[in-house]
């Protein structure tokens, strides 16, 4: 999976987690939703660690993979073209 696919997958997984969390707000004991929510969060965190190992940190204040150097400043900045990916384009 290349960087853009990983970023897009992470965006989707985080979106799923938020939507399921909103459902769980009103249905806290729905077992199916809890298992689905947990699997989404686990997959997202696993993917984040994988992403960080390959392309560097996603957050300046938190790291999902053990880093011994602070390379937040080496990556493309959010306002640089190389940072973002295309969401649209495959409707």
């Amino acid at each position, binding site marked *: 999976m290349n960087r853009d696919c990983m970023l897009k*997958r992470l*965006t*989707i*997984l985080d*979106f*799923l987690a938020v*939507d*399921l969390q909103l*459902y769980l707000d*009103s*249905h806290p004991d*729905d077992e*199916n*939703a809890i298992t*689905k929510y947990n699997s989404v969060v686990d997959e997202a965190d696993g993917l984040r660690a994988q992403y960080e190992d390959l392309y560097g940190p996603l957050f300046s204040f938190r790291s999902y993979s053990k880093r011994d150097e602070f390379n937040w400043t080496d990556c493309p900045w959010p306002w640089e073209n190389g940072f973002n990916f295309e*969401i649209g384009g*495959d*409707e």
Partner: protein
Amino acid sequence: MACRPFEETIHVNRLARAYVPMQKLCTLLEPTQTLLSGTVFPELADFYK
């Protein structure tokens, strides 16, 4: 029997009171479809036709 994504029997005990049926978890949209439809729940994806 197809899963109905919302509460169907509503015990209305007050007149002239609005009531939103509780949502029930049935199916979820495909992950890639969620970003484009703005929700993961098909019953909430309401495209204005």
